[in-house]
């Protein structure tokens, strides 16, 4: 299943070839080895989950993918080429967008402005044109606003458009963060525990949004999640991590029946 070919999921969706591949990634912080020699791939259009107990190294892996951490060893391959050493903003400009385990919104800005920041990589009117607010800058602002409004409609947050994010409850903040990531029209969307701390209803909404994003825009999604039920429902394939090592990789059913996984993770939960 790791060849550079597509496959068909249990529910009959056609998945494309490999879009991102982690090759023998090791990440050390001083004496701590957060990730040790992990390889896995992400196919175009699939929903890929990473699960594992607390401190397993899941967030660290997402940080490697988004360029925030540079792996101590190993290579990241993206769209068929080895990714050179890059600043995180350059990775983002290649079409990798993400949300954070601890919400990282811009608290001093409105919901609309927060989501508009998701489109900054697509906006390049000159300073001068922005200063006089004519021509290029104005047209660009309107065109991007329109895209953002589509995301706002999609995630059903029209009514809080102008609210400062600082005033929003936790669940809505998570949704706005997703909106900001979606506004970037990413090829890969990384979600770090998108449902952590939510109530059942909010979790259902969020699951629906994730499935819809994948379905409607064909966005490749890599998500970290603790709730096993959610993972089983959402994801096409699952990587299981424990103490920085990969102990399982496959479809939800395969993973659930893997003895190492049961011992390390499911057995405990």
């Amino acid at each position: 299943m790791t060849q550079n070919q597509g496959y068909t999921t249990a529910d009959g969706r056609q998945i494309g070839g490999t879009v991102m591949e982690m090759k023998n990634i090791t990440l050390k912080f001083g004496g701590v080895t957060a990730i040790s020699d992990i390889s896995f791939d992400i196919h175009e259009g699939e929903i890929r989950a990473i699960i594992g107990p607390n401190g397993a190294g899941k967030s660290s892996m997402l940080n490697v993918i988004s360029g925030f951490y540079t792996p101590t060893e190993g290579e990241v391959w993206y769209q068929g080429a080895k990714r050179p050493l890059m600043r995180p903003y350059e990775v983002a400009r290649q079409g990798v967008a993400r949300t954070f385990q601890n919400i990282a919104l811009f608290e001093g800005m409105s919901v609309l402005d927060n989501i508009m920041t998701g489109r900054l990589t697509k906006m390049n009117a000159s300073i001068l044109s922005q200063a006089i607010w004519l021509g290029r800058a104005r047209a660009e602002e309107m065109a991007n606003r329109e895209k953002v409004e589509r995301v706002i409609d999609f995630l059903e947050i029209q009514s809080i458009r102008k609210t400062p994010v600082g005033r929003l409850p936790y669940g809505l903040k998570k949704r706005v963060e997703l909106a900001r990531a979606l506004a970037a029209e990413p090829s890969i969307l990384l979600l770090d525990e998108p449902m952590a701390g939510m109530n059942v209803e909010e979790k259902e909404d969020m699951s629906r949004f994730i499935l819809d994003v994948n379905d409607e825009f064909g966005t490749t999604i890599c998500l970290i999640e603790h709730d096993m039920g959610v993972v089983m429902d959402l994801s096409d394939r699952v990587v299981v991590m424990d103490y920085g090592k990969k102990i399982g990789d496959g479809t939800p059913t395969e993973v659930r029946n893997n003895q190492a996984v049961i011992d390390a993770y499911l057995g405990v939960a």
Partner: protein
Amino acid sequence: MLYRTAGQYKTSYEADQALFPVRQDAILLMVVLALAYVIFPLTASEFTFQTLLIPILIYSLAAMGLNILTGYAGQLSLGTAAFMGVGAYACYKMITLMPWMNPVIAILLSGVFSAGVGVAFGIPSLRIKGFYLAIATLAAQFFLIWLFEKWAWLYNYNASGAIQVPNLDILGVYVTGPLASSVTQYYVVLVIVTLLTLLCINLTRGTLGRTWKATRDMDIAAELIGINLMKSKLTAFAVSSYIVGVAGALFVFQWRGAAEPNLFEIGLSFEVLFIAIIGGLGSILGNYLGAILIVGLPVVLNIVGEIELHDVSLAVWVIIALVLGGLFAAAVSLRSKGTMIGVAVVTLLLVGYAFAQSRGFELHSAMIEHLNIMIVGSLIVFFLIIEPHGLARLWALIREKLIIWPFPH
């Protein structure tokens, strides 16, 4: 009632992002512009031009420059005065090297030099933040003052070490120097400040503004969503220093008429910073409110010091009482703790002063100076604790309440 938004529907994103989505704001602005462009110039005395109108505009502009950097992009700076100095000296050199140059163009170009210097001293911001960056900008402050003193070429080797603004005209009308009239100088300042304010509004509401605010609010997240932090910070230093530099050129050429290096000492940096804080970090309007307060306060105190309170007629006392009472009632209904405390303090001070004066107490000018410092100091503490977003936030609160008044839900 005053701010009725009902019936003002937005039919496009363009309209939604217009500068004044609410009509009353536009009307208010028209009134202010009419005052600034027509009424004040027609009625103001020489004293009003020189102690209030011109300095308020120049300080507003300097604070706006600093606000771009600190309020919008989140980069602390204590070197504002030195960057003002760069603008002033650059303008002086341009005008003395090229006497044929249009002085207004020279003033606008002088900001280019301070922008360059600002970017150079902004480079540490790529590595350090907050308090440490503030200390690094102090280095700029001290180094540049030293340069203004030691580099004689800057002041054309004058024996005094000072620069004198020459008389320069545009089409026969003197706009700088001792021969220029206050009205002309005021108009030059007003037009430039209006223009740069417009540019600042546009920059801060668009792409660049969002880039800056994202950098300010959470730089790590900003970088992970695709913002080049280096570019974001350095453009903030460039734009900010440009505006501060132009403010410095105006400061010397349109107001002081002469300058020595110590004019740009750190005290001025703090004064501008106080205006930005009291007015409101991350606001354009706030710079004006802050400058009115800081520049206006000593003038008002001096006037109060000269008034014999027992000569004030009952009618005036009644009006003062009504205004204060009305403000307090408004503050209570708006639940604005800050305004309530403010009104209460002003009332107490007034009553206390009236009582003291009836006992033979007199406000000397030296005392007024101390009083000014004490009041500004308490205002800083007050705003930092009660209303960190300054006067602009207080105004926004009042405006917000007026929109739903008298039907709060």
